[in-house]
């Protein structure tokens, strides 16, 4: 896979998807060794450009990079003051001095990693941009699901919550569709896109959605901080109508349905406390697999920083 950047799922071919998923397994195997490091990225530098707060994704990427023996630089960006792309462009320009080989970007503006990727020879990895994409999340989700269902085609996954604002919903549904999984969206009518992707069933009623017989329910965090207007009348009503309540968990448990969540969870909103102890919750595996998936991505990309005759307009 001779690819410089990892920006979204849409641009991946089926072969690239299969390759990345297959590559995650040997990286997971490394975790059982006493020495978890391998020298594959020795001498390379990985720059973290996280404009949005995130402990779990940031540390997951850092661990992945360090286990590949790369040098990790965390550009401590003030979370609050960045609103305009200008500031990011100036930051990208100063990277010239650092000669970063990989840049991992998380930003609230959709499309920003794309803009950076066009302007730099480094490999750019999208760690989440606005409501657009979170491709490494999708990868670890598919990888986790494949551990339970080795043959994914024909399986059904119900993604529930604030679909409209969710980059996880977009990337994960996109990847699952590529793998032949049937995807359904469940959420309040105001949070389900009407011109959404083709081939996805849309539900606004949880019980009806469960009658569709999904193998897995993928819960999204209900994003209070992204909402400019009120899309539903408050968290209690949301939990009752669209959350995994105790009663729904009983039903889910009875039918052996798995539960996934990209984290962090909002207890009492999209799920009740008991879900965290549910034996068919894959939430912890998702976290574990995140490192392996991100190692696979870092390993599979090729930055152009070694090229001598590369475009002089790029840094």
């Amino acid at each position: 896979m001779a690819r410089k950047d990892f920006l979204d799922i849409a641009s991946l071919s089926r072969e690239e998807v299969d390759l990345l998923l297959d590559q995650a397994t040997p990286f997971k195997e490394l975790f059982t060794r006493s020495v978890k490091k391998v020298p594959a990225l020795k001498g390379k530098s990985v720059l973290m450009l996280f404009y949005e707060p995130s402990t779990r994704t940031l540390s997951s990427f850092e661990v992945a990079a360090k286990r590949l023996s790369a040098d990790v630089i965390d550009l401590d960006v003030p979370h609050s003051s960045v609103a305009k792309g200008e500031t990011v462009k100036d930051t990208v320009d100063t990277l010239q001095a650092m000669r970063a080989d990989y840049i991992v970007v998380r930003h609230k503006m959709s499309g920003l990693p794309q803009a950076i990727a066009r302007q730099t020879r480094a490999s750019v990895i999208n760690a989440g941009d606005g409501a657009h994409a979170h491709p490494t999340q999708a990868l670890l989700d598919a990888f986790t699901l494949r551990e339970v269902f080795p043959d994914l085609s024909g399986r059904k996954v119900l993604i529930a919550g604030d679909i409209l604002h969710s980059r996880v919903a977009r990337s994960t549904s996109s990847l699952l569709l590529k793998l032949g999984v049937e995807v359904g969206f469940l959420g309040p009518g105001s949070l389900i896109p009407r011109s959404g992707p083709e081939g996805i069933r849309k539900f606004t009623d949880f019980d009806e959605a469960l009658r569709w017989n999904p193998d897995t329910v993928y819960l999204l965090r209900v994003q209070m901080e992204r909402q400019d207007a009120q899309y539903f009348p408050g968290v209690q009503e949301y939990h009752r109508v669209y959350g995994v309540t105790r009663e729904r968990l009983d039903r889910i448990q009875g039918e052996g349905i798995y539960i996934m969540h990209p984290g962090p969870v909002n207890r009492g909103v999209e799920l009740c406390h008991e879900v965290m102890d549910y034996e068919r919750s894959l939430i912890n595996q998702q976290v574990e697999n995140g490192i392996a998936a991100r190692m696979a991505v870092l390993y599979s990309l090729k930055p152009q920083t070694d090229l001598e005759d590369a475009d002089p307009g790029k840094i």
Partner: protein
Amino acid sequence: MPLILDEAAIGEAVASLVGEIRAVALRGRIAIVGVRSRGDEVAERVSAALKEQEIDHDYGVLDISLYRDDLSHLAENPKLQSSDIPFQVDGAHIVLVDDVLFTGRTIRAALDALTDYGRPARIQLAVLVDRGHREIPIQPDFSGVSLETARMDHVIVQLKKTDGGDAVELVSKQ
């Protein structure tokens, strides 16, 4: 395509390796570790032969892609496969097995990989074909066949499980 070794010749080479390794295995427990790819298939055959003779030993497979010294220079990184080292490496007597020994860099990578699993007591090297042109001071302890080759020649090894048939071909780059 100039065929250098046919199925029979390969069988003889494997048998020769087995003979030498057997002697070592009888003196103390060894671990056969095949280097992917194709080194693992050779290791499988050696291991099967030892099992037939009821010589107990450990067995593992190593993928060295992550340890290669030329990753920065490749346009595309090699496809990674899992390694499988199910035994304790600390204190083990390991016999690394590979199909072709050439510059020695693959084995250097294998040594690095192995030592990240633990600290072996001893490591020996067994190769099916030694084609010379070392770039690193690494020599085999056991080799099935030695080939005279030119540096730019291609030595193509094919094995049943990986490629569908047994053959070693030498293609000269003129």
